[in-house]
């Protein structure tokens, strides 16, 4: 069988408002813009991304966004795993519940977005502890990384302190940090994530650059694993 395995990326945090849905939609759209087959499973009970796709049907031209109940996630992914390749992104609800565990268990990479603020980081640390215990239980390494978003480009003291906290807590974070940009909020009003928006606008171009960095980093993580597996 020549089909490349489905790569699964879960966006999970016990806390709401950290940018899970936004970052999930953004990364999905970058991957889609590069020609990858992309499926997004929306298991957040608010159905943020599914409602977005219903409101702007053109989104479904380049990626498939489907709602799934959290308790059906594993069965749904089992089915997709046999039939689909490319990337599967899971947008998990902002709560610690069985669906969060299920997503982290089956994902190749679990990303927890967090703003550089104490409440977000505390919740990310809590989730990381649970994930470590879960990994121990199932005898599988779970790759859990923090994605810092809502970053201020002038790196104020509180932001540097937050980064220090992440390091002290032993969390692994993605090197890419996402700045606070209007382009991310706009996409829910226009149906155009940065990679499908007007790139001649400077804020869009800047957002695209950062999202490209993020996608490159994620793809490098998978590429490194492929090399290791082949060796």
């Amino acid at each position, binding site marked *: 069988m020549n089909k490349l*395995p489905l790569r*699964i990326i879960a966006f999970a945090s016990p806390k709401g408002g950290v940018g899970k849905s936004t970052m999930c939609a953004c990364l999905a759209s970058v991957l889609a813009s590069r020609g990858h087959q992309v499926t997004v499973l929306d*298991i957040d*009970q*608010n*159905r943020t991304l*599914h*409602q977005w796709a*219903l*409101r*702007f049907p053109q989104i479904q031209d380049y990626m498939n966004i489907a*709602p799934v*109940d*959290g*308790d059906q996630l*594993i*069965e749904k*992914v*089992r089915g997709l*795993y046999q039939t689909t390749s490319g990337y599967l992104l899971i947008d998990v*609800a902002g*709560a*610690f*519940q*069985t*669906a*969060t*565990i*299920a997503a982290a*268990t*089956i994902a*190749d990479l679990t990303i927890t977005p967090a703003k550089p603020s104490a409440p977000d980081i505390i919740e990310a640390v809590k989730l990381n502890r*649970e994930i470590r*215990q*879960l990994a121990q*239980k*199932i005898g*599988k*390494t779970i*790759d859990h990384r923090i994605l810092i978003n809502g970053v201020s480009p002038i790196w104020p003291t509180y932001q540097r302190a937050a980064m220090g906290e992440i390091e002290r807590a032993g969390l*692994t974070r993605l090197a890419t940090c996402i700045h606070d940009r*209007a382009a991310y*909020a*706009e996409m829910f*009003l*226009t*149906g*155009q994530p940065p990679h499908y928006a007007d790139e001649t606008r400077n804020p869009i171009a800047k957002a695209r650059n950062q999202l490209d960095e993020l996608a490159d980093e994620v793809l*490098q*993580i*998978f590429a*490194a*694993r*492929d090399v*290791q*597996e082949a060796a």
Partner: protein
Amino acid sequence: MKRIPIQPIDFDLAKRAVDEFAVERQVPASVVPQSTVRAGEGQPPPPSVPAPTPVKTVVAARKPQRKFTVDLPDYIIEAIQDRAFKAKPKKTARYVVLEALQSLGFDIQPDDMIRDGRRSEA
């Protein structure tokens, strides 16, 4: 770079592990509140909702506004500004005045209550 080899998924094991872990750690099951039960799921959006058109900016068009200048004693102006400045998060003086009018029973539309004039409240 941290390297973790890709491991094939054993879905049956995953399911069992999730169930066991959820019991052990008393993790709540996924809850779907009735209020969000699939509004429009699998169906086109309701016909009463007009198809949205892409917008260029996120700032909503402002309603017509006019300047309305009144002379007030210094201490009143200072009190308004003080209240706006000390509010957490801060408010504009305009917002404080509108709040006061609202408490007197003036009908002020919610989208005219802009707490911070530098940002869209949308």
